């Protein structure tokens, strides 16, 4: 027995050693092999890089943003917190310019912007930080069932610490009921957190009205505006928000950077989630990543210039996509409110089709069934369930994310591929293709 094990391990190690000779894995030799037009990854073969329609997961970096970032990767590598030399000064100046660019896009003051690692961190600082700071007097948080996972998880964390959390239900169109919000506010409510644009279904909550209610009851209002930044006009004063979470990589900026807006008048205070050198006024210690922050600033400035142009285009492309699919298929349902939504996020459900096979068959279109964070599980999205979408329909949802770089041809291709796949699945299921 022992010798058998020995020979097996020996054989295994031998074969492993021989592999490099048969199949060279180094990049140097890979470049020599003639380029093929096929990719094989995770067992799927596709003839080219898929067309990208998943802008809610992340957006490509705009070349103009990259152009602004590169100098800070190459020669301007100073630590923005260094006070004793030019390297530090120039980085610090760049960070402050970026802070102003971000602030301008949301009509805030640069002093109210704190750079973080992304919207998740902002949400954690906002929800946990505010409640921890005011824990002596405030014991209650209001949020919605359709929030992003990081807000919901922060709330769960607070619940374990003994805080009380109200998860407001949403109506069938994905919007919250303002009267229900009013009714949920108590004297010990320390925070209301409602996201501006939903990441899965794209509905826009009535921010001004919610802000109005929060002002009336004197409760701080936090919003996760990661999906709203650069897409819909944001004004922190009109919305009356105390805290707002922003992300760099949803506005054609780099990943790994975000910004938290924190109101100064009336002042909102938080307990830091990270302790250290006291950077960013002690709210977020750790060296500010100059290239990323510069990228986020450039992305925000661009977004301000391009918002109107992008908006027109995205709306046109959304109509083209929806009309294209509806012209060929019946039983297509738009999830969430039709009127109050961001055009670049089209979440559709297809009747009588099995969702998993639909997504698997659409390998040449990079789309997702919902949030990237939860798309690994086969469970239907909790957002769609909160809307009261049928189990069947929730399983077949596809989110088409349209952005600045999407073309008409891509939309036409996506329509063609989606229609073909749905018709194929319907034929498989019902024998003959039934025209409804």
């Amino acid at each position, binding site marked *: 027995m022992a010798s058998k094990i020995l020979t097996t391990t020996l054989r295994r190690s031998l074969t492993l050693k021989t592999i490099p000779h048969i199949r060279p894995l180094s990049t140097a030799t890979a470049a020599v092999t003639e380029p093929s037009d096929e990719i094989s990854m995770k067992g799927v073969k596709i003839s080219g890089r*898929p067309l990208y329609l998943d802008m809610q997961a992340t957006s490509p970096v705009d*070349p*103009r943003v990259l152009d602004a970032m590169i100098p800070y990767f190459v020669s301007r590598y100073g630590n923005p917190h260094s006070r004793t030399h030019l390297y530090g000064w120039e980085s610090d100046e760049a960070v402050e310019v970026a802070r102003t660019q971000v602030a301008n896009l949301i009509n805030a003051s640069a002093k109210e912007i704190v750079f973080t690692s992304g919207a998740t961190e902002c949400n954690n600082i906002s929800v946990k930080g505010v409640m921890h700071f005011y824990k002596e007097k405030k014991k209650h948080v209001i949020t919605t069932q359709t929030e992003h996972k990081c807000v919901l998880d922060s709330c769960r964390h607070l619940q374990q610490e003994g805080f009380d959390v109200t998860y407001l239900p949403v109506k069938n169109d994905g919007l919250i009921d303002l009267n229900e919000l009013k009714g949920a506010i108590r004297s010990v409510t320390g925070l209301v957190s409602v996201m501006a644009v939903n990441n899965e279904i794209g509905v826009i909550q009535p921010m001004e009205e919610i802000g109005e209610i929060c002002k009336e009851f004197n409760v701080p209002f936090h919003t996760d505006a990661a999906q709203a930044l650069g897409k819909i006009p944001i004004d922190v004063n009109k919305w009356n928000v105390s805290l707002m979470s922003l992300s760099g990589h949803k506005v054609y900026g780099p990943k790994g950077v975000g910004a938290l807006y924190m109101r100064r008048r009336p002042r909102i205070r938080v307990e830091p989630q990270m302790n250290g050198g006291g950077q960013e006024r002690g709210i977020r210690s750790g060296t500010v990543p100059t290239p990323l922050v510069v990228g986020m600033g450039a992305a925000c400035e661009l977004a301000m210039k391009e918002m109107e142009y992008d908006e027109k285009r995205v709306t046109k492309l959304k109509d083209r996509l929806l009309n294209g699919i509806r012209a060929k298929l019946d039983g297509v349902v738009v999830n969430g409110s039709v009127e109050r939504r961001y055009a670049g996020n089209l979440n559709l459900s297809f009747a009588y089709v099995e969702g998993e096979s639909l997504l698997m068959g659409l390998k*040449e279109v990079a789309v997702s069934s919902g949030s990237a964070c939860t798309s690994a599980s086969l469970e239907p999205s909790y957002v769609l369930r909160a809307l009261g979408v049928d189990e069947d329909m929730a399983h077949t949802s596809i989110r088409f994310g349209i952005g*600045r770089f*999407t*073309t008409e041809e*891509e939309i036409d291709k996506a329509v063609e591929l989606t229609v073909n796949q749905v018709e194929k699945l319907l034929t498989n299921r019902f024998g003959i293709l039934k025209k409804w």
Partner: protein
Amino acid sequence: MASPSRTEIISLFRSLLRSARQFPDYNIREYTKRRTIDSFRHNKTLSDPSSIAAAFSDGKSQLQVARRQAVVYSLYAPEIKSIMDVKH
């Protein structure tokens, strides 16, 4: 600032389109083309010399960005093209 001549403007337009074509990335290439054409069309009605000059100098700096980035994008172009480039 002196107002640019018609030939200068047309030359800028052509240069922008030329650098747009150099992007190996399908989406960036198409966007640069489209954005160039749309901007020039949008600015066609400008009559005030100072705003024409401002638009012209903005276009020139955009051209610098496009030239630099076309190089960067070519240096790191993926081996496999977008399916939008493969099938046409």
